[in-house]
């Protein structure tokens, strides 16, 4: 039985043993173990994919679309992520990837790297503005933007208010297709992201910075990989050209987006735990002089996404070799950038708030503190909450009870035993007392 969760993560309840791996690793404490299996708090989940990676029973699966689901569209455009180029051994010409995708059943290919180069050029210009709070934080990783929206609301103004490269790519690709093929209407065209990342599945359903995404489906790199490899192997001379530069390809790994700024005053971090630490430091204003912060939820950057085939560090090493003879960039900002900007603010999502009423929230906080003191503070996870503090919070929110703590329960049982033991003892040895 597969239970559907309102995100990119599917839980196979039969495979879930109710262990505490994912519980302990979730950076937003969105997971609880209830009735013997994991339950994800949809509002808190930021789609970072940690639980998918860490589950020893493969009970968590990323959800994504399949190419077959889109066969009714007249014109299917592939939007390959830069990370795709790092998945192949002995590849030294990206034209093979583009030609291979066309052989796999796509009618056209629009490389997301092109849009990434445009975002880079925009960012270089944006950083020159005087009226913006610095450091500017990248908005490319949807998990990071969602994390900021639930945990770091004060930093929302620092987030670069441009749509992520894949969204811009989808929009440009559809426009290009309609120009090249005037007989096509927008509803005939579908733009399908070849994604390293389950968070993009969720992004398309609940977009950030815009009302509706123009991406029609998110396919997994690892799902299309073998078909693509055999298509690429059958190519003698590629007949389609890649239009990616060094900057676009570099976006696949951490530091790539930053290196494109041609400006040394940046910080690039990856791995969701590190991202949280960096955001904590920025919130404390500990980074004077930095202009740009690049944060990627996955280790290594997008090459570390849960939908890739190759190890992230191998993929990145390949990309470094492959990018050597690529032009610096091939795509440039032409005309107005308004259509690429957020048209809807990303707002603070106060899912961690205890109560909308401040006084009530303070009461609840006091109760949490009092209750938490009774627990052993070993954060064992056996109660189904990741920490003793989280259990106390769940109790106050009415989602758990004090008996869920096995240590506390054991203490109580011991107390009852002792009490009963004493009673029994007293009953059968009435004279002893009188000595």
């Amino acid at each position, binding site marked *: 039985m597969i239970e559907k969760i309102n995100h990119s993560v599917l839980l196979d309840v039969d495979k879930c043993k109710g262990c505490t791996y994912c519980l302990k690793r979730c950076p937003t404490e969105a997971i609880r173990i209830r009735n013997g299996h994991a339950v994800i708090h949809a509002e808190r989940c930021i789609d970072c994919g940690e639980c998918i990676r860490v589950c020893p029973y493969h009970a968590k699966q990323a959800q994504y679309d399949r190419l077959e689901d889109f066969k009714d569209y007249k014109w299917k455009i592939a939007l390959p992520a830069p990370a795709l180029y790092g998945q192949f051994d002995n590849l030294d010409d990206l034209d093979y990837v583009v030609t291979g995708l066309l052989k796999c059943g796509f009618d056209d290919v629009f490389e997301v790297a092109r849009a990434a180069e445009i975002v880079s050029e925009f960012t270089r210009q944006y950083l020159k503005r005087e009226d913006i709070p610095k450091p500017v934080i990248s908005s490319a990783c949807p998990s990071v933007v969602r994390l900021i929206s639930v945990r770091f609301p004060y930093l929302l103004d620092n987030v670069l208010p441009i749509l992520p490269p894949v969204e811009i790519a989808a929009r440009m690709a559809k426009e290009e297709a309609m120009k090249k093929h005037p007989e096509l209407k927008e509803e005939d065209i579908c733009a399908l992201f070849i994604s390293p990342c389950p968070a993009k599945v969720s992004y398309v359903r609940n977009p950030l910075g815009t009302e509706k995404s123009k991406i029609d489906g998110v396919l997994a790199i690892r799902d299309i990989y073998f078909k693509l490899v055999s298509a690429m192997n059958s190519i003698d001379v590629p007949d389609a*050209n890649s239009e990616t530069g060094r900057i676009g390809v570099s976006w696949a790994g951490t530091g790539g987006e930053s290196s494109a700024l041609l400006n*040394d005053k940046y910080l690039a971090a990856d791995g969701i735990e590190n991202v949280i630490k960096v955001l904590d430091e920025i919130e404390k204003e500990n980074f004077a002089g930095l202009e740009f912060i690049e944060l990627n939820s996955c280790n290594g950057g997008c090459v570390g996404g849960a939908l890739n085939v190759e190890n992230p560090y191998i993929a990145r090493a390949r990309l470094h070799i492959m990018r050597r*003879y690529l*032009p610096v960039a*091939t795509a440039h900002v032409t005309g107005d950038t308004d259509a690429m900007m957020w048209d809807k603010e990303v707002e603070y999502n106060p899912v961690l708030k205890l109560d909308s009423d401040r006084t009530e929230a303070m009461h609840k906080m006091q109760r949490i503190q009092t209750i938490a003191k009774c627990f052993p503070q070993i954060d064992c996870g056996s109660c189904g909450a990741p920490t003793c503090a989280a259990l106390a919070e769940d109790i106050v929110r009415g989602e758990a009870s004090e008996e869920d703590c096995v240590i506390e329960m054991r203490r109580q049982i011991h107390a009852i035993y002792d009490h009963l033991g004493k009673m029994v003892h007293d009953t059968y040895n009435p004279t002893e007392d009188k000595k």
Partner: protein
Amino acid sequence: MSVPLKFHYDVHGEDFTSAGNASVQAKKALRQLGYDPNIIRRVSIAMYEGEINMVIHADGGSADIIVYPDYIEIVLADKGPGIPDVSKAMQEGFSTAPDNIRSLGFGAGMGLPNMKKHTDDMKIDTVIGEGTTITMRVNT
């Protein structure tokens, strides 16, 4: 073939992010002529390295590919500052590239050595304050 086939490319120096595009165009043209992929690779790498150098150091220049019956000639000409010490510049690892492009992977000091490595003949004419012309040949 009495007049050799020639491709001319202007290498613009004002925008660093445009560097390297001419060699992509050259690669496409040579592919259309049906050259062996390895020959195309050597020509485009040699031209690429020269193109990047012209953008970084000389504010651009021009690149010409001349196709002869048994070899391809690449001529890169700029009006930049010239190379003060050619033998030093030819050493692997020697670089005068600015810091802000190093994180993109440039400035490893492999440009000129790579051009020599991938061609069958290379000649550097440089005059301080006037410019540099590099002529390379790849036998086909």
